[in-house]
């Protein structure tokens, strides 16, 4: 048995707010306090904060586009490297670190679980291979479905009841073939439209080849996910990401999905108002108001971090636009039958008005959404910033004087188009624990994560209390994974292989018989070679539906 004593415990799920409590751990789980059994190991957490391990809800860390970015961007790696030790592998990279380094860097921040944000089924094997080489983290991945040919073909069917049944089966087959955890939708319809060299899509734009609208794709997929009782709601990257004035589309999307559990990802990128001269201004207030009225919706921030980033999404038309705008190098990959993707490295600067406004919008969202259980701290790593910047964002949230000092350093006109300087709210330690672990665990439907109740996984982060919250959260003093100390004083002391979370919805796990011909004709691989084999799941755990 292992005992953590004298620490100030933050366990928001169970209403523990900084009281000094002892935590007991045995066989990888949190157990009842016991005076009978002897502790084999005692960690003295005096002067420290004890929290559940951090949970990353949206990060691009493994798979085809992440790796394409790594090989395309040696300039991201030269100055950022780590040597090997007796327990850890070497690695390189800043915005797109190598797999081992990714695991270690998350661990240093006290994170123990992370979800890869966007994976096509055809290339899911790749993402699993990389996650198998990403130690320290339990993980899972979201499967892309918002521009899938077979989904759209089913949505085009007239018979309402039959269509819903078949959609259930199709979602189930795609999820289980990819060994994914949840349904991801990226710019619904817009990626298919790009392949036809057509423009951006609104909610009611008919999308080739069937003329299905993004509104229909969204509504039916959200209902499909709900019907299957997946542990995580549909994970949505809405239309018009990054476009000035896009908050209208975002609000309309929210109204369309009213009453239906939905997670809106990297909300910062979807909360842009428009000025008279077609410039950007904050619409964070409008978006936050809507979230405040709709507890069925959750979001993550996608906060901008100044400095280099590598943008990468399945939103190929948006990536092309970024390429055109910046002139920076550009990778695109259209993926047959399923999706597209693009990568463009770039840099956010506080002296660029557009970037400064983006930065304020993310923070406004984090501060204006009243219920911290509805918003998760993310940087859409590495799109809005690298995940290693989380401690600096925590400082901005907890310290309004620091925040106001930072606003002073922005482009002078930024305050005209934003409201950040007037917001006085400061996050409490408990609220930080919510937006970094408890809320994401809850939104993901992981009852054993993000809390320290009896029976929960013994993933624990211990931070030394410091006035400077950035320093405090930049390097955990201890991290425990499955009850074992894996990191001490910022150094990896044990490397462990994490779990892969998967789901087994009760739809049909084989391809619908009348779709087999389409598969054979239009995919470039054989159906029997399509699904990810068991060999790629070294340590899987099924999270039950319902």
């Amino acid at each position, binding site marked *: 048995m292992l005992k953590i004593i004298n620490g100030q415990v933050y366990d928001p799920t169970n209403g523990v707010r900084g009281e000094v409590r002892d935590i007991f751990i045995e066989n990888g789980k949190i157990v009842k306090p016991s005076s009978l059994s002897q502790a084999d190991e005692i960690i003295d957490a005096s002067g420290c904060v004890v929290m559940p391990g951090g949970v990353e809800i949206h990060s691009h860390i*493994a798979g085809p586009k992440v790796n394409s970015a790594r090989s395309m961007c040696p300039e991201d790696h030269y100055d950022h490297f780590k040597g090997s030790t007796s327990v850890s592998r070497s690695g390189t990279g800043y915005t797109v670190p*190598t797999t081992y380094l990714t695991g270690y860097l998350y661990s240093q921040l006290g994170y123990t679980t992370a979800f890869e944000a966007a994976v096509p089924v055809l*290339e899911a094997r790749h993402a699993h291979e990389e996650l198998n080489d990403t130690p320290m983290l339990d993980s899972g991945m979201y499967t892309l479905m918002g521009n899938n040919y077979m989904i759209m073909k089913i949505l085009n069917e007239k018979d309402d009841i039959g269509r819903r049944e078949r959609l259930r089966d199709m979602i189930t087959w795609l999820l289980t073939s990819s060994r994914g955890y949840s349904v991801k939708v990226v710019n619904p319809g817009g990626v298919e439209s790009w392949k036809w060299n057509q423009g951006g899509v609104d909610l009611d734009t008919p999308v080739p080849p069937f003329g299905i609208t993004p509104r229909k794709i969204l509504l039916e997929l959200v209902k499909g996910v709900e019907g299957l009782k997946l542990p995580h709601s549909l994970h949505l990257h809405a239309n018009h990401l990054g476009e000035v004035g896009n908050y209208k589309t975002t609000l309309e999307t929210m109204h369309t999905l009213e009453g239906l559990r939905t997670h809106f990802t990297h909300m910062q990128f979807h909360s842009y108002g428009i000025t008279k001269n077609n410039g950007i201004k904050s619409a964070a207030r409008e978006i936050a108001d809507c979230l405040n009225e709709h507890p069925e919706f959750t979001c993550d921030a996608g906060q901008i971090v100044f400095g280099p980033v590598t943008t990468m999404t399945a939103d190929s038309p948006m990536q092309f636009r970024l390429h055109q705008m910046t002139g920076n*190098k550009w990778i*695109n990959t*259209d993926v047959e*039958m399923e999706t597209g993707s693009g990568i463009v490295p770039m840099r956010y600067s506080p002296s660029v008005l557009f970037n400064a406004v983006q930065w304020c919008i993310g923070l406004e969202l984090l501060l204006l959404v009243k219920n911290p259980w509805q918003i998760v701290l993310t940087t859409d790593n590495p799109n809005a910033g690298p995940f290693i910047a989380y401690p600096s964002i925590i400082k901005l949230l907890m310290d309004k004087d620091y925040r106001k000092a930072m606003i002073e350093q922005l482009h002078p006109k930024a305050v005209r188009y934003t409201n950040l300087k007037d917001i006085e709210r400061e996050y409490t330690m408990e609220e930080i624990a919510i937006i970094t672990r408890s809320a994401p665990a809850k939104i993901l439907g992981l009852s054993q994560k993000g809390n320290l109740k009896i029976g929960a996984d013994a993933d624990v982060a211990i931070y030394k209390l410091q006035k400077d919250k950035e320093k405090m959260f930049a390097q955990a003093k201890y991290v425990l994974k499955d009850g074992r100390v894996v990191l001490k004083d910022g150094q990896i002391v044990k490397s462990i292989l994490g779990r892969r979370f998967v789901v087994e919805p009760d739809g049909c796990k084989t391809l619908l018989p009348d779709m087999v011909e389409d598969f054979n004709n239009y995919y470039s691989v054989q159906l029997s070679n399509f699904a990810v084999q068991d060999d790629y799941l070294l340590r899987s755990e099924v999270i039950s539906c319902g």
Partner: protein
Amino acid sequence: MAITEHKDVVCTFCGSLCDDLVVEVEDNKITKIKNVCKIGRNRLMHSQLDYAPLKVNGQEASLNDAYDEAARILTEAKAPLIYGLSSTTCEANREAIELTEILKGLIDNPSSYCHGPGVLARQFVGMPSCTLGEIKNRSDLIIVWGANPMESHMRHFSKYSVMAKGMYTPEGRKGRKVVVIDVRPTPSSKTADMFIQVTPGHDFEIASVLRAMLKGLRLEGLDDDSLVGGVPLSRWKEFIELIKASHYGVVMFGIGLTQSKGKDLNIEQIITLVDEINKFTRFYIMPMRGHANVNGCNQVLSWQAGYPLAVSYNKGYPRFNPGEFSVVDMLNRKDVDAALIIATDPGAHLPKSAVDYLKSIPTIVVEPTRNLSTPWANVVIPVAPAGVGVEGTYYRMDNVPLRLKKLVDFPYPSDVEVLRAIKERVSHVKNN
């Protein structure tokens, strides 16, 4: 004896990774193969012949002796080279990279003298591309440039590209325009609607002129009859009009571009051209990768080291410098003092000077069959070939990963087992 039929077998010859082979096995022997090209058939049918001999310094040896000697050579070396890895699994690549890290050695694969310049060009300008199924389903214009798939990737045209019938290409070949650009007529150029025979070494210039024409810039000093790359400008105009009229075009390029004068600069310029065409229509570009898993090696190196090829671990962390850490340069400069070769035949592929040096340093060869390197290597360890004797992962030329099947038993271990055994011995020495 019963015949076992294996369906949907993945071929391990070229980067097309055709995955629809049907292989019949009788009494642990491959007897018949369907849906396969001549080269793939040859490779599979010969996989059980002519095994590499297990030997240490010319003498027959046990596996344990071979592992011990390999570990001794590698641990005593100051700068060991780990090289090859393009015709073995990603699982073996993972082991090889970890071994290199432990040894503080250098690692490279044949891409540094094949498609490596394309990989480097991608670091300068990126690369708009698509999967092979998209070419099949959507492409109405295919440009084959410096490649001859009819002889190198024999089923590519019929299965994925020129002749393939897909979703919006029900007529297959009839619905597509095909242009071949090459320095000489080839079996591939014979299939083209337009064969543009260019003079060697002018690809950069051609792409530059095409970029200008696409943008409608005036070409000073050139009229319709002026020659660009040996071809009249009027013909390039026709070519540009074809491009502009297309809906979904793709350039498939080969080592005719990556290994001719200009190398990575050729690819950089052509990728930029393709980039710019996307203002008019969808247009993509794809390297015709040769060895079946050369891409997989680039992939695993990228996710473990952060760099796709030419990596040195001699400082304890990965560093990347093609030209300094690429195989031919290192051998020619005598920068390495021992070598572990996995799944390639440097004796057949590398320049004579590089092979001569390799022969002069302790060399370990891990290889299924006898080749031009096995006679002189100090240690030869025969292995079961990937996709025939062992399972594992390969990456197709378009980055789609596929799982290989095991078809027959071999009397030898896998690359993964060999590399692990050497790694354990090396770790033991390094830790004591």
